[in-house]
């Protein structure tokens, strides 16, 4: 009898586990706006500049890109002469939703700063979907964003990639099938937060020990899991499945290459240490974030196939951010014969609205440093490269036939400060239209100054 109960127990767990994945994306696009853009200038996100070119988006996908494409009656025609088209912009480092506006304690949910390792927390469980910042980012051409926990902890928890289409639940904003990510942090922040409490880590060597202790636990958990999963069905019935551990489940996901590591790290020497730790435990670092000193080890990053997600010019707020070089992004990009992966990120609710201008500054600094980098290539820094780092490049990040029609129509060349996003499409559906006034507003915006108006209604 007892065995039957055990069997039933496992059977039921099995059913639940197989049929229900919690927190799956329920995203559905808006109805498509099938469109042919005529005579546009295009940066395709693959490093190409296409002048006087047509683009067709249909049923949510990029359908054709070329000169004098045939139209059809089901396509709305937009004259894009003298205008520019780019892929939807992707921010690989955002805290929208977890540090929403207004910035108040009651919804400041980005750092579970109560223990240096909190791999068990998920940023998506903190996200406030009524944050008024998503719509502002959308007007800056951002169609996809990756939200990370903050950097107080050595291992801060899981990040989430979302479509910039505001909805009432986070599940309905989540980018379908995007891999989960893990936030890790080097340097001053964790050692300050915990050192000030007289606990470990209070030094950088304490930081390094903290990561390694966690990975040792994760390896042990993973081997138990592997051992169990390798058993025959009969043998599984006769043994216990290892008890779930949320923290170790996340870390094991990294060791299984299912979860992408995004590592906040400023100093070159610390990044090199983190690369050693990744090799010790056989996991991959997808990107270093902020990485003010990436230019000092640009070759090492390129050799290890690690992206650097960077600001164009922020510096000096911390000692580890003192050695700023404005050509940082260009130097990373050009490392090892142009095989480096450079990303312009925001980490900021204003910066996310102007990633095109941030890329323009970084490009200008790169050209002044003597590099021959085209605008078309610099566009990759805010489109295809962040798509790769988020693990969604097969679906978005460039205007390739068959990919999602995440598209921005700009009034001018997007490397100009005067360029405004005129129309933004997510999955081929218009989400923002400057001329018609179509724009989303969150519940927060409704009636909050004047009851009969929205917050920023003219």
């Amino acid at each position, binding site marked *: 009898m007892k065995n039957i109960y055990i069997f039933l127990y496992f059977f039921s767990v099995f059913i639940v586990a197989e049929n229900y994945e919690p927190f799956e994306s329920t995203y559905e696009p808006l109805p498509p706006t099938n469109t042919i853009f005529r005579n546009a200038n295009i940066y395709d996100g693959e490093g190409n500049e296409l002048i006087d070119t047509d683009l067709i988006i249909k049923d949510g996908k990029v359908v054709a890109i070329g000169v004098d494409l045939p139209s059809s009656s089901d396509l709305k025609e937009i004259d894009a002469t003298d205008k520019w088209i780019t892929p939807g912009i992707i921010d690989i480092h955002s805290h929208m939703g977890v540090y929403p*506006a207004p910035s108040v304690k009651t919804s400041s949910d980005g750092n579970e700063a109560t223990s240096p390792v909190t791999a068990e927390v998920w940023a998506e469980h903190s996200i406030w979907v009524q944050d008024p910042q998503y719509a502002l980012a959308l007007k800056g051409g951002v169609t996809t964003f990756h939200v990370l926990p903050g950097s107080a902890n050595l291992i801060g928890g899981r990040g989430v990639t979302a479509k910039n289409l505001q909805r009432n639940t986070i599940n309905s904003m989540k980018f379908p099938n995007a891999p989960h990510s893990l936030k890790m942090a080097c340097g001053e922040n964790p050692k*300050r937060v915990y050192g000030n409490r007289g606990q470990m880590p209070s030094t950088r060597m304490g930081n390094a020990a903290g990561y390694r202790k966690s990975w040792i636990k994760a390896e042990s958990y993973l081997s138990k899991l592997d051992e169990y999963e390798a058993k025959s069905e009969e043998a599984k019935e006769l043994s216990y499945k290892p008890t779930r551990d949320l923290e170790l489940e996340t870390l094991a996901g990294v060791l299984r290459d299912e979860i992408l590591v995004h590592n906040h790290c400023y100093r070159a020497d610390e990044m090199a240490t983190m690369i050693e730790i990744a090799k010790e435990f056989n996991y991959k670092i997808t990107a270093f974030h902020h990485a003010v000193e990436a*230019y000092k080890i640009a070759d090492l990053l390129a050799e290890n196939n690690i992206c650097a997600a960077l600001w164009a*010019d922020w510096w000096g707020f911390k000692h580890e951010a*003192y050695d700023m070089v404005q*050509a940082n992004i260009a130097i990373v990009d050009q490392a090892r014969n142009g095989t480096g992966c450079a990303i312009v990120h925001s980490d900021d609710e204003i910066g996310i*609205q102007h990633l095109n201008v941030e890329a323009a500054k970084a490009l200008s600094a790169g050209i002044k440093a*003597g590099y021959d980098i085209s605008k078309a290539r610099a566009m990759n820094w805010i489109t295809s490269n962040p798509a790769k780092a988020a693990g969604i490049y097969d679906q978005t990040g460039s205007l390739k036939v068959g990919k999602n029609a995440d598209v921005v129509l700009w009034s001018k060349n997007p490397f100009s400060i005067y360029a*405004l996003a005129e129309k933004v499409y997510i999955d081929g559906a218009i989400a923002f239209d400057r001329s018609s006034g179509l724009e989303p507003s969150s519940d927060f915006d409704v009636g909050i100054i004047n009851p009969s108006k929205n*917050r920023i209604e003219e």
Partner: protein
Amino acid sequence: MIKNKFLLTLIILTSNSVFLESSNLVIKNAEIYDGIENNPYQGHILINDGVVTKISKTSVPYADKVYDAKGKIITPGFIAPDTQLGIVEIGALNVTRDDEASIYNIGFSIHDAFNPNSVLIPWNRANGITSAITLPRNTSSPIGGLGSFFLLDSSLDISSEADIVMIGRFGGSGSSSRAEKLALIDDMLSFASSLDKKDMSSDASIDEVIDDSSLASHMDFKPRDVKALYRLINDNLPLIIKTHRASDIIKLIELKNTYNLNLIIMGAQEASLVADEIVENNIPLIVNPINNIPNSFDELASNINMTPMLEKAGATLMFNVSRSHNYHLIRQGAGVAVANGMSYGGAIKALTSNVAKTFNLNNRGSIKVGNMADIVVWEADPLEPSSMPEKVFINGVDTDLTTRSTRLRDRYISDLEKPNTYRN
């Protein structure tokens, strides 16, 4: 009073070899945005001993040195009105911060902490900022703390104007009601108005005044604090109050009119709701044109269109774009304002002459005969952040545009065959 030590500066700088001396220079063929007119004009600028002595639209005046700015835009050097330049080196490192006092409060002056060798100074200069107003951090008092004006010429013989502005802040904070804060400002201003010259004759007499005032005693005023309050009223010292909410701006306007204050409002994220009142009462604003985030419940009306809207209403505007050490990003902010409808000439004025006028920097902020020659030659449109200064003249001196940032850059892109520590 500007401490004009220009001749001495020249002697020091020439021996320093960092800067090129030029006592007599003409910048010719420039497209000049002079900071006064909205539209540019073509002209030649003659500079003698650091002063603009002639602007010719026809023939090129003779000078020992000639700089041809053909095809280039020139502007007055930009003046950043809200910085911590020279007093904060690394934000999160207290030992490099000199923006706070522990004993003095209202009368706390940052002036003597200024470090002309800060690496922030060449960096901001190389991005077109030739001078700046440096402000302390807000104190526990709702008004108090004195800011100074500095030239960004990296000279140890500092050119400055000390204590030209008092700061304050007003709004929701979570500590006490804004009504109490307003009452406190009102009481402080009332105390300041009651001071007469006789009271100020010595520290001993000021101590007596403090003893006689329950407010001054309770707030533990020191003679320096009282002197600063006296200047606020009697010298009509500019007072920058950081505030946002529309109803708070209205309350400050009432105070301005009661005490005849020289009030400047900073932040002002809801200024668009009270634009007419601001303009009618001649209140200059220091705004961040790029900040459209409703970052607090005092800033709900925050809007990217606010700056252009305020310009149309007739407000005097200046910019702060607080991005840590990059005070030069006021020009990116200006570009965003223009992209959203502000006039180009108006944006240039906001970066130059509006600051000079508001803070009584009488011989700076515009290119005109008699002004000090703080002039930037731009490689392209100065409001495009990707365009950089080609030349930055401060007091007519062609300054060095090398920065620690460009030095570090060069260390990692050239001489790579050498170990990095043996590179330049």
